[in-house]
């Protein structure tokens, strides 16, 4: 939580000596508050004030990153409790967990599938972020080795200090895994190890007091990057814990809880429940999420949820307006009109592309809005479409001038005929799913 100019002023010497280059201490304080000056400019500030000021300047949720082989998973740095207040910034990392009690083959089969998983959502390739290796009475180092043989993504390593040491020795130089999970019993050796490895350390606590206590101890032991793992499994327990952690960090600038959160939705054991817990973890403040089951039909909706929740509310995801080619169209192929809202464009483009039909797609500038939203807001009308037809030189691309409107805006067809007198204006189906059939049967 940033300090105000007045709060900063109270920590300055208040002598107005001008050595900082500003006429008064207050003027300097105001510049500091606006982040337009550096504290180092004042040679007279006391050590105590300086450390208070630098603490206050820290982001309320400590940013950190896990790294390996060119991959990076960032967490922390969040500034709001609700996405509409500004935006959430670092998409929580999704990790699939394997146990060292499983055979190397079983581990590798699961890791391979999770590692290779990629799914397209509105033109973005979404993937999971890494693998969690859990000590479970087996050979931890062997499990880490088995994982590394098939995945280069960042790791979460959960074991005792000895096993962790063995596991760490197998990682490439410069890799930063998350280590854990330290508890009231083992935190000293775990903290020493994390400090030595320069890796973040997860700490667990069954109550808020226990978690705060452990975070403080681990910090005093020299670990800078801490991750909080409230020991809760139920939806309500996790929601309450995560909300309190984030609220204390943002509203009270309470340092011991100013760290990313680690969640284990798979702890419940039931995959259907795990999906809901993982969804909640995405929406409600977790930074690292450990899944015990990997299935594409669950990974896909979770990845889409993560995109939705972490989209900046000020900026709808958009594509650049213009004329796009689907399946190498020629002069006889139709022009399909749509808007430049990513979800709209890709639901149409994917449909046409998948069906093998050829088409020109005119992506009109509708300020990133869906067909009906843009129409209702007056950003998608015949005049604008006609303007974009001219602006993008569409007439030069086709011999047979056929233009297809989305079914939802059939009302525009009359006006568009007036705007584009030498074009044949057609009304398509309402939903993109029905386009291939329409193109085959009607648009011949």
């Amino acid at each position: 939580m940033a300090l105000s100019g007045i709060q900063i002023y109270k920590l300055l010497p208040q002598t107005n000596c001008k050595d900082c280059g500003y006429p008064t201490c207050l003027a300097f304080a105001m510049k500091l508050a606006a982040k337009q000056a550096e504290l180092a400019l004042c040679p007279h500030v006391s050590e105590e004030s300086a450390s208070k000021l630098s603490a206050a300047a820290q982001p309320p949720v400590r940013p950190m990153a896990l790294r390996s082989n060119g991959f990076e998973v960032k967490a922390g740095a969040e500034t709001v409790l609700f996405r509409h207040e500004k935006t959430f910034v670092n998409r929580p990392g999704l990790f699939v967990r394997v146990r060292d009690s499983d055979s190397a083959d079983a581990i590798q089969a699961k890791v391979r599938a999770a590692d290779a998983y990629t799914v397209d959502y509105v033109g973005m390739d979404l993937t999971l972020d890494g693998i969690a290796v859990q000590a479970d009475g087996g050979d931890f180092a062997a499990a880490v080795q088995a994982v590394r043989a098939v995945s280069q993504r960042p790791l979460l390593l959960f074991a005792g200090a000895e096993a962790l040491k063995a596991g760490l020795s197998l990682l490439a130089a410069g890799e930063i895994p998350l280590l854990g999970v330290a508890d009231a019993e083992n935190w000293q050796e775990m903290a020493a190890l994390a400090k030595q490895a320069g890796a973040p350390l997860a700490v667990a606590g069954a109550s808020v007091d226990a978690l705060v206590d452990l975070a403080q101890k681990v910090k005093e032991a020299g670990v800078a990057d801490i991750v909080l793992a409230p020991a809760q499994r139920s939806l309500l327990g996790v929601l309450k814990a995560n909300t309190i952690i984030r609220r204390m960090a943002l509203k009270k600038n309470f340092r011991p809880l100013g760290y990313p959160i680690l969640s284990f939705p798979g702890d419940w054991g039931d995959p259907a429940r795990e999906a809901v817990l993982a969804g909640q973890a995405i929406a409600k403040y977790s930074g690292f999420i450990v899944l015990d089951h990997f299935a594409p039909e669950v990974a896909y909706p979770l990845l889409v949820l993560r995109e939705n929740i972490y989209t900046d509310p000020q900026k709808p995801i958009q594509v650049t307006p213009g004329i796009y080619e689907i399946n190498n169209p020629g002069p006889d192929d139709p022009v399909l009109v749509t808007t430049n809202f990513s979800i709209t464009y890709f639901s149409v483009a994917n449909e046409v592309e998948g069906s093998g039909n050829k088409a020109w797609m005119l992506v009109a500038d509708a300020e990133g809005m869906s067909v009906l939203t843009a129409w209702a807001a007056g950003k998608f009308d015949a005049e604008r479409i006609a303007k974009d037809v001219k602006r993008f030189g569409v007439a030069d691309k086709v011999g047979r001038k056929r233009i297809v409107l989305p079914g939802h805006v059939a009302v525009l067809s009359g006006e568009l005929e007036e705007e584009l007198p030498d074009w044949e204006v057609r009304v398509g189906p309402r939903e993109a799913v029905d386009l291939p059939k329409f193109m085959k049967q009607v648009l011949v």
Partner: protein
Amino acid sequence: MVAALAELGGLDEATIQALQGGVGLPAIPAAPAAPMAPPLPPEPAPVAAAAAVEPEKMVEPAPDAEWLPAGVQTEIAVEKWSGKVKEIALGAAAAEGGSRGAVVKIGGQTAMPFMFMDGELPNAPVIAVEIADRRPDGWSELLYQAWGDVLDDPAAWAKAAAAAGANVLYMRLSLTDAEGQPNTPAKAVAAVRAVLQATGLPLIVVGPGQAEADNDLLVPISEAFKGERLALGICEDKNYRTIVATAMANGHLVIARTAMDVNLAKQLNILISDMGLPLDRILMDPTTGALGYGFEYGYSVMERLRQAALQGDAMTQLPMIVNPGEEAWKTKEAKVGEGVPAAWGDWSERSITWETLTSTMLIESGADIVVLRHPETVKRTRVAIDDLMNQ
């Protein structure tokens, strides 16, 4: 598909039999907590009550340790709000002039969803299951399979929905019958009567979504079932007067829908209450989008509306109803099983997860009623609600 659901642990034996067994009413298990309705004033004999079946419970892991135990040392930041969401009763029992066996209460919150440390959250979110007066057109194949032949009989469908775990029924009237003939007030009233008699659950009735047809069908229904405390919809800024007037005259509630905008929602609530309908008879529908299709807008507008309500803005202090079922089942992800990317995985599980995530995340952003379509989603959402309310 039924087999696939059974594998998922989705349905119990009795439900599977009911789903496979066709229209025969006896095959459908009775509503868990929903008593059968006593006879409606003007009409024929009520359906006999079948033996109540206990809803099946999952094996629960040991409960969590209390994260905020008594005597907690850390000074917890508590959010104190001055406003309160109106508490609204849906459905009227015999004593109140209706015939419902169960009256459902929603609203009454003085805190953001499930923030029990901040204030009161007296009522659990409610699951409404969508049914219709006839077999709907254009639904996903998975939904036809999941419900089976009950889709041809609104009363049987109502019972199956109750058995699946509905707290409330959400009945959509069709514009035309299966042969394409326009729906008539007489047919619509008969269908609503059959549904009311089939279970004791409170009922929401919405028109086909065209102003003229909505008004033609909803007014006679409102009059025929005076005193039942139905919720009638959908009121939009272009068409609300007729529905509000008839709801007012016959003791019903209304649903007010606006397009994902705090100010539009407030405006419509003002217009409706200006007509004289008390605020505690309005449910607001801020509109939602499915996961991947505008979900984030719906999610955030509900958080904003609920914050405004708790800050004391009277015109937003109404419970919220949203349709994750309808929206999720419109998506290609839910509708289409073939010719989709392999990365989409199993069709059935994907669709159910799509609907379940949309519904549960909307519940966490403030929904008081979620309207759902698939019985397995109902079950999963119920588990989530129980978990979230289990202090």
